[in-house]
């Protein structure tokens, strides 16, 4: 009997472990050997490819893939074939760090695009910096990632290997506050966040500017992202008499939250950041979402002349998923790495130097080109110099651009 039970437990645990490793090794097909005589350079992609945030993550992966294919087709760098290796971080800092270690161990990886979440980036930065491996995030908006924890008073560059093409929440939050107060004419806000790096940071910068403009805060609440029941919070919002809700967080919670606030009888718009500007928000929030607002980084990709080719190529590429909120930025992040590699190769007589990683990281600082989202270059902290933002509103079951601009203090 003992023997049998031992076998049964082992079997059950093995079954569990197998399924877990099965998902761990997914997308782990990135090879390393060179193809057709030329040198292969691998560009790592780290994003949530499964789970709640996968809609955004898969958009990042596909867009990076498109950039690499374009570069190979156009022979952007002579003698170099680019290739992506995508790893899934599931939006978890611990998984992100493991992926970072994996990228570092693969000598052919000369740059990494990602991650989506600021909290994941925090766990990856040091690993990459120790290996002098450059990381370009298309989506991180937490200000402290580049400018340090005391970014409001004393800006200090955190890691020389970290860059991003997305604007920070130091601009996004106040930009949203200005729109809500001046254009939407809402004066009484209820602020909710999910306590994560991104959500709490965004809610804080929004609140500060909103108060400065003369608005009042009717209440604050921190939700628990593990649950889908926000009815108690929704009732609180209704009682507070607020005429607008600001939510710092992402769409898996924002959708149900918006729906439950409307269901509780408070017919007021929910406003969020780039984390909620996704089509999944619309399906989760349902019909009541009309009038909800979101700010997102950059100008709307569909309307930029520079993005026409990207949108057309993406369609032609036959990708199953939408490019989502960060598609254009992911393409540009990938292209920035390609540009940096190009510079390094050209400076070294058409060959990759031995310390290619360090050289690429160095070259990244001075990269400058016209990308999908406009001019791509980085300031002294590694932040994008392009600080455009756009307000989107839900109209007829879709996100429609309302106003583009930037925050002017």
């Amino acid at each position, binding site marked *: 009997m003992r023997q049998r039970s031992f076998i049964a437990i082992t079997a059950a*645990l093995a079954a569990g472990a197998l399924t877990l490793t*099965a998902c761990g090794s997914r997308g782990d097909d990135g090879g390393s050997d060179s193809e057709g005589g030329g040198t292969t350079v691998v560009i790592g992609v780290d994003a949530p490819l*499964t*789970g709640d945030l996968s*809609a955004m993550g898969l958009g990042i992966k596909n867009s990076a893939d498109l950039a690499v294919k374009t570069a190979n087709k156009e022979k952007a760098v002579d003698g170099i074939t680019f290739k992506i290796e995508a790893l899934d971080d599931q939006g978890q800092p611990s998984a992100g760090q493991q992926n970072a270690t994996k990228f570092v161990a693969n000598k052919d990886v000369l740059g990494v695009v990602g991650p989506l979440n600021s909290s994941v980036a925090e766990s990856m930065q040091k690993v990459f910096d120790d290996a002098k491996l450059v990381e370009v995030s298309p989506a991180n908006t937490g200000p402290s990632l580049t400018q340090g924890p005391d970014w409001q008073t004393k800006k200090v560059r955190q890691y020389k290997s970290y860059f991003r093409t997305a604007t920070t929440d130091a601009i996004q939050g106040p930009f949203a506050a200005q729109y809500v107060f001046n254009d939407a004419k809402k004066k009484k806000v209820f602020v909710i966040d999910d306590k994560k790096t991104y959500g709490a940071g965004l809610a804080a910068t929004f609140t500060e500017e909103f108060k400065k403009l003369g608005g009042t805060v009717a209440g604050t609440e921190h939700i628990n992202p593990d*649950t889908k029941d926000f009815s108690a919070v929704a009732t609180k919002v209704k009682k507070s008499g607020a005429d607008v809700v600001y939510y710092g967080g992402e769409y898996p919670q924002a959708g149900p939250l918006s729906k439950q606030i409307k269901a509780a009888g408070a017919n007021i718009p929910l406003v969020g950041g780039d984390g909620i500007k996704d089509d999944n928000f619309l399906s989760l929030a349902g019909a009541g979402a009309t009038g909800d607002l979101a700010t997102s980084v950059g100008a709307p990709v569909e309307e930029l002349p520079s993005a026409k080719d990207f949108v057309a190529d993406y369609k032609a590429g036959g990708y199953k998923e939408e490019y989502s909120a960060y598609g254009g930025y992911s393409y540009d992040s990938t292209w920035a790495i390609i540009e940096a590699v190009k510079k390094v190769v050209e400076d070294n007589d058409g060959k990759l130097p031995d310390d290619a990683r360090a050289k690429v990281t160095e070259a990244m600082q001075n990269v400058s080109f016209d990308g999908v989202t406009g001019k791509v270059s980085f300031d002294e902290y590694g932040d994008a110099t392009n600080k455009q933002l756009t307000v989107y509103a839900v109209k007829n079951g879709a996100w429609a651009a309302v106003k583009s601009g930037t925050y002017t203090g």
Partner: protein
Amino acid sequence: MNELPQQLVNGLLLGSMYGLVAIGYTMVYGIVQLINFAHGEIFMTGAFGALTIYVYVLPDGTSMWIALPLMLIGAALVATTIAVGAERFAYRPLRNAPRLAPLITAIGLSLALQQAVWAWYPEAKSARTFPEIPGGPFEIGNVTIQTGDIFLLIAAPISMAFLAYFVMKTRTGRGMQATAQDPDTAKLMGINTDRIIVVAFALGAIFAAVGGVAYGLKYGQIDFRMGFILGLKAFTAAVLGGIGNIYGAMIGGVVLGIAETLATAYIADIPGMDKFGSQSWADVWAFVLLILVLLFRPQGLLGERVADRA
């Protein structure tokens, strides 16, 4: 506006769902003293069973009034099959093993079920939208109730009444009570205890399936991880109400749901407590309540009715 009635209804609804799932924990524990940690996943697969019926079996645009009973049947079928299968192949071989062995098996099974749905159910890698009952909301005084919630308000007491009748009045139900009290003696009296255990698993699964459908209707979406946290809460509810007691499970669920809701709503208003009042602290307060109850009543709220643990 006085928000108390609305918050109590919010808590009652959340708690009824905990209660429906908690019944499965408590029945299985009452009879085989096993904490079936895979029960949250039974709840999850039930919800996916209902979704399968609606999306892949019924023609598009079927009225919810026709679809809902069929979805419930589908949910119950899937959940029961998995629960009975788990009992037969994972727990029965371990029945005489040390207590910890089936517990670990249950945790492994829970992970395996989550990952199986993740890997093989179409598009289950992120949340899937669940059909909703059209109409509503209803206003009673200043309390708003959604159509999706009405299902829960009706289903939970009916399920409870059915279970009480089954356990108290039917032959199988009395067999369950006997097995819970003393499996060996019950066996000597001619009760097929193996069958009774299967019935306990199956009944628990049906209640979890009803809970799963209610979850989908209420929140409009289901995902492969929905059973994990809810399962933990339901287990807590079962302990709070007195594990082994079917009425205790439902009462424990409702108390837990209302405690969480009221903690979210009011703790922040107590002077000096505004830091600890948000929803992210509600679970902490719910567990403070659990500890307090267990300090004074280690057997749980209704724990003394040992004869009823079935």
